[in-house]
């Protein structure tokens, strides 16, 4: 079993965001906030650049000429897609990273959890381990307080332990937990990432 402390999560999160510039999905690290002199500051979180996806039921784009607002040089109509917003937060219950997903339709409307669920289930069929229906549920974003769909993390520590063991032998602390974790999880949201860049898994690198 391999768990992560909040402090380690924040350290890895910052480094993970910095290294993500070369990837199609890049990450920003949002620092945690201190709410008062006696409260422990919240753990920060990672947010992705938007992940564009095909919309299950495409929004009919009309091709009317705009009444105002634009001008003759404004292109009207055209394709638009749905998008996923991914966040990685610290899952305090399990002591592991937690992938949170929000989906938005091309019209900008928030997907329901079941819409996210069916998208993830479909995406995971194209590669990697299939996602079970009951592994996607709604939780509240620990920092934002808004509902996100979450991939339940109950086995994370278990398979992360296996990976870290295999890749590093006796020195699991040398591995970048977060990068290794994401390389496995990414396919669940239809992302194909390299397992890691060069020695990204190695903290010492």
């Amino acid at each position, binding site marked *: 079993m391999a768990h992560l402390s909040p402090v380690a999560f924040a350290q890895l999160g910052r480094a993970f*965001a910095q290294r*993500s*510039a*070369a*990837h*199609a*999905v*890049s990450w*920003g*690290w*949002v620092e945690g906030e201190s709410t008062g002199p006696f409260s422990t500051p919240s753990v920060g979180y990672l*947010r992705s*650049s*938007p992940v*564009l996806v095909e919309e299950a039921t495409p929004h009919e*784009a*009309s091709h*009317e000429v*705009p*009444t*105002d*607002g*634009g*001008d003759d*040089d404004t*292109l*009207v109509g*055209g394709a*638009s*897609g749905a998008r996923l917003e991914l966040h990685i937060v610290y899952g305090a*219950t399990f002591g592991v990273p937690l992938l949170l997903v*929000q989906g*938005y339709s091309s*019209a*900008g409307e*928030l997907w*329901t*959890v079941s819409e996210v669920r069916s998208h993830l289930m479909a995406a995971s069929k194209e*590669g*990697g381990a299939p996602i079970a229906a*009951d592994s996607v*549920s709604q*939780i*509240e*974003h620990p920092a*934002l307080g*808004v*509902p996100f769909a979450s991939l*339940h993390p*109950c086995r994370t520590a278990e398979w992360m332990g296996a990976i870290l063991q295999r*890749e590093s032998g006796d020195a699991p602390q040398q591995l970048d937990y977060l990068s290794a974790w994401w*390389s*496995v999880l990414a*396919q669940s949201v239809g992302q194909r*990432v*390299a*397992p890691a*860049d*060069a020695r990204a*898994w190695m903290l010492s690198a």
Partner: protein
Amino acid sequence: MASLKFQPFTAALDVGFLTELGRRKLHEFGLSDAPVEIRGSYARAERHEIPSPFCVGADAFLSGEAGVPPTMCVAPGTLLNVNTLEDFKELDKTRLLDGIAQRIWEDMKSGEALERGELMLRFVLLTFADLKSHKYIYWFAFPALVVPAAQRASPPVALASLLSDTQRLALREGFASLSATRGRAPAFFAVRVDASGTLEVGPLSAFADWAAASHTPAEAWLAFCDPCPLLSNPGWPLRNLLALLTAQQLVPREWPSVRILAYREPHPGAAAPALHADGLGLPPPPRAAAGDSRSVVIEVHGPFDASPRDAPPPKAVGWSLNSSNKAGPRQMDLSAQMDPEALAEASVDLNLRLMRWRLMPQLDNEAVAATSCLLVGAGTLGCAVARCLLGWGVRTITFVDSGVVAYSNPVRQSLFTFEDCIGGDTPKAEAAAAALRRIFPCVHAGARRIGIPMPGHPVSAAEASQVGEDARELERMVEAHDVIFLLTDTRESRWLPTLLAAAHRKLALTVALGFDSLVVMRHGMPAEPAAPPASRLGCYFCNDVVGPANSMLRRTLDQQCTVSRPGLAMVASALAVELMVTLLHHPRRGAADADLVGDDEAASGEEAKSPLGGVPHQIRGSLPLFRTTCMRGSAFDRCTACSATVVDAFREKGVEFLRSAFNSSSYLEDLTGLTEMHRETEAKLEEMAGLASECDGEDDF
């Protein structure tokens, strides 16, 4: 020459932004509708056919660029949150847009925009937040200065037709290292291709020097990160870049044209993964191929004469279109997602599901949640049982009680507060149900103010119809629920609910307290109605050798002393609910025979088990000993509450039978044959009564 059409930004507002806006309005802005600085960001289009959205998320209120993913260009914006829908409609949009356009123009004129290209991406967000209904109206404007240069642009050509593969890889690397220096992707930048074909990428501010040193326009290009994926059109940021050419003498006057690159190159991806991901089913790492590019180049023809220093800004456009492609606001309705009740419900569900995921895959949360519970008695036990049921996710809980909340109640009865006592006329059942709804609004909490008719408590003629009505109402309640909890504080008040549960074959659980001892018992339910009594478990009355009678008068049995140690009710209530949940997981549910973990005989005898553990018949506990003991008692064929004789008589005569039982203290004993038995066991009865009069707890077993 056909004029160039620009694809507008597709604005994408996150729910997190709106809730943060709501939070700030409540705690910070108040009624102020002064402009607030925010930030937005977009990534370049890349491989996808879909335009890359312009995102405003929860972090939009943070200053600087921290927290924005490094592939995204950051743009400064102005938020205007108005207080009413009327303000939203009446606000002078043209003036607002022109005001921001003016600032963009000034930054271009001063040269500031050359150093900080993102200033040309200033945007406006006009919002109205209806915080009560979680409805938000918003309208983005991306001010674009309209300049004639747009009319002099030739159609886009693919970058691949101008640069070799090697040069394009150099472009990507140059862009990556410029991004790395700045910490993020620049919205605008410059490209130099020298005479030998060597390609270099630099900041926007490098362009003027590069152009001056160039022999031909092919050697120095302007470039921008383009959110538009179309091969036939450029995206919105190009508009103000063209305006910059009017504001500043950036392109040499003698140049016939200038090349502008709409940068849409793919991200280089991971460099060299040597790591083996076997067993994880990982796809091979993606590497962007050189030919994999949607970048286009637009050639804009001169003349390039900068406008005078004090020239007024060109006309501006840029209010966004709504979903029907008309200029207009969009709406986001979060009432379904942000409704606090829905949030509470989802969280409660998740908590219970965590239990299943983490610890017990066999847990059937849905079956527990779907179980409706009738709580007869809304006192210390009723309150504690209800809270524990809520914890398990039970959604339907009905209280039956005839009392009102008294001043002594709230300290022990966990659903009441001081306020409930004032006036002395708040019915307990209703107050308890209301408290449950306050705790968890999604619960279906009901209340019935019913007095429970009791054997040995004679019913006068005047009361007869009310008592009959109460009995019928209680029967309807028993029928309507799955599990009946008997939580009153006198013995005889448990008689009618016991009988009704037996008659309607419902699972009944009894909790009874002495001063420092407790009994939790589930009443036996026959597998088949005709099953012999010995094969099923007894009820609360089965162990009796006297029928239930007025304990207030006789003072020998049971709960005349209703004062028990305060922790006792909590312990007993919790045990009762856990017993119910364990039973619900047993394949035979209420009909399961008594069974205990560690009880080898039972373990080998009965195959069917509850994954949660044993399903004892009775749990007896003693606080002085800090010990609970499980016991089994068979049904008694002369039981005054659950025997076939009594149940049949009730089924046959109904209220008539009940009235006889209430009015005559010996009716039930006569009916079941107990009277006769008593004569034979007089001596033993004396002995029992002697023990019982110590009144030190549960003494009726």
